[in-house]
């Protein structure tokens, strides 16, 4: 029996829906990354072998091993009294300020950033094992929660409980953004979308994006946003062109924009006006996917971008997208900021809450560096300055 068959056979019954693979020697070449996790855990698919290598676009969970015992990247508080704990907070001792500790934490952030960059995620989990000590981590764009270390040899139930529970979680509970799904388009529609977006490689998968504010009116279709292999904290903005395909009854005119758009009921009414909004017909639109900052001060609301556009339109600001729709993505609010007062915290957290947010508008621009003559460049800058001037000074 070969080693790989042995591995797969041996973990039967461990995680019914997942498969763990030793991926330490095989980097993620599928996604043009040289990164490799020690162990990658993938969904179990009946009759299909899991990837034999690191694949950040498919992994559900990753495990990182360190031969040395705990204390390099994270150091649990040792003091028992309040005074000692405060001193440890003061010293920032949970994350030792050493080059080795910083590298270790940076490595973990590197993996988590790659996973979030190559998947549609609100949060994710991972396991770090240093010597005999293990920790669970939960990553979201506000911060990363790290558990206290436990000896997984002497307390295997903790490890088993985590894996057993994780195995049984739904995709949403594991952190997936379920507002985005594989496109599954009919071949002729798939070809049309690829042509409109200039995607020649048929192996590039297309996805169906739900657009808050236009729920029920159709979907946006496009590839995965460009990979940005960096830390996942903060706004994590990704922009891309997508093709908007309205629902059948919107195209046929049996349903009007007025009837279907709950957020802006006064924006458009009547059959004739329906054709004027970008979402009433199939076309290329521009999408911005980001995590918008939420104020953690009581009573202070940070205005979402599409609301700002409404104000700018109201004041006649020129040279900005005419039709802008956006909204918060379901279940897309960070949770780690709720821990800032936790009694077990031994760091001074600098974290802000974020909300996953998606916005579309009908104008698909092109990069400024693609200007074809100087006049074009100067005109573009002039128009931008006009918009800035009116929005600021009128």
């Amino acid at each position, binding site marked *: 029996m070969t080693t790989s068959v042995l591995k797969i056979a041996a973990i039967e019954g461990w995680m019914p829906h997942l498969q763990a693979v030793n991926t330490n020697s095989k980097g993620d070449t599928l996604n043009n990354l040289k990164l490799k996790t020690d162990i990658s855990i993938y969904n179990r698919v009946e009759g299909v072998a899991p990837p034999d290598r690191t694949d950040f676009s498919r992994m559900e969970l990753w495990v990182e091993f360190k031969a040395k015992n705990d204390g390099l990247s994270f150091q649990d508080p040792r003091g028992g009294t309040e005074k000692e704990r405060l001193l440890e907070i003061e010293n920032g001792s949970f994350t030792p300020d050493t080059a080795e500790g910083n590298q270790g934490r940076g490595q973990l952030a590197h993996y988590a950033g790659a996973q979030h960059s190559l998947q549609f995620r609100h949060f994710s989990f991972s396991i770090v094992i240093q010597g005999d000590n293990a920790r*669970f981590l939960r990553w979201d764009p506000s911060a990363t929660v790290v558990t206290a270390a436990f000896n997984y040899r002497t307390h295997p139930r903790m490890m088993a409980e985590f894996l057993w529970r994780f195995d049984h979680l739904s995709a949403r509970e594991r952190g997936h953004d379920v507002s985005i799904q594989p496109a599954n388009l009919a071949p002729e529609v798939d070809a049309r979308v690829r042509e409109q977006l200039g995607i020649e490689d048929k192996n590039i998968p297309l996805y169906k994006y739900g657009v808050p504010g236009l729920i029920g009116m159709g979907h946006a279709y496009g590839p995965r946003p460009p990979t940005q292999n960096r830390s996942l904290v903060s706004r994590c903005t990704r922009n891309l062109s997508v093709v908007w395909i309205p629902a059948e009854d919107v195209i046929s005119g049996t349903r009007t924009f007025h009837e279907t758009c709950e957020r802006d009921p006064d924006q458009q009414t009547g059959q004739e006006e329906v054709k004027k909004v970008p979402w009433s017909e199939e076309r290329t639109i521009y999408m911005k996917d980001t995590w918008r900052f939420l104020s953690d001060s009581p009573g202070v609301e940070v205005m979402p971008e599409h609301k700002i556009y409404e104000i700018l339109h109201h004041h006649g600001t020129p040279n900005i997208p005419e039709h802008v729709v956006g909204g918060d993505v379901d279940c897309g609010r960070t949770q780690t900021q709720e821990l800032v007062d936790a009694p077990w*915290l031994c760091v001074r957290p600098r974290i802000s809450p974020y909300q996953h947010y998606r916005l579309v508008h009908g104008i*698909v621009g092109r990069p400024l560096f693609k200007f074809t003559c100087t006049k074009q460049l100067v005109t573009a800058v002039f128009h931008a300055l006009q918009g800035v001037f009116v929005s600021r000074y009128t």
Partner: protein
Amino acid sequence: MACTHQDETTAQPELTPAANALHVTQRETSSESTPTKKKCGLDLAYTSAVKTFEEVRHHLGKEMNGRWLGAMPVNAFLDQYVPATDEPLPELPENPFESVPRDGVESTRYDPFVSTRLISETSVL
């Protein structure tokens, strides 16, 4: 930059040296992603400075300073973020991780770890 123009298919003239310079500058400082503190992208399409993993991880580690929230008690973590399933955890075998080596290089531990039976034979099915 995913932003494309609808006339993208039309032939673009050769860029002048100045335009080429701007092209490079734009790619280096692309505002495609606007997080306020991001300085350590490894996405080679948007930088001319190839960074080693060590450099990237150094910056990522610094960037995450103050954002590691610990040390959360394991049971509290499980209860808050990993809800229990209706199916209770089956009985565990004794010392399930016994086969994972304690000493030696860490790579000797991967295979035994993924092969560990956390659930005893008798409790499956």
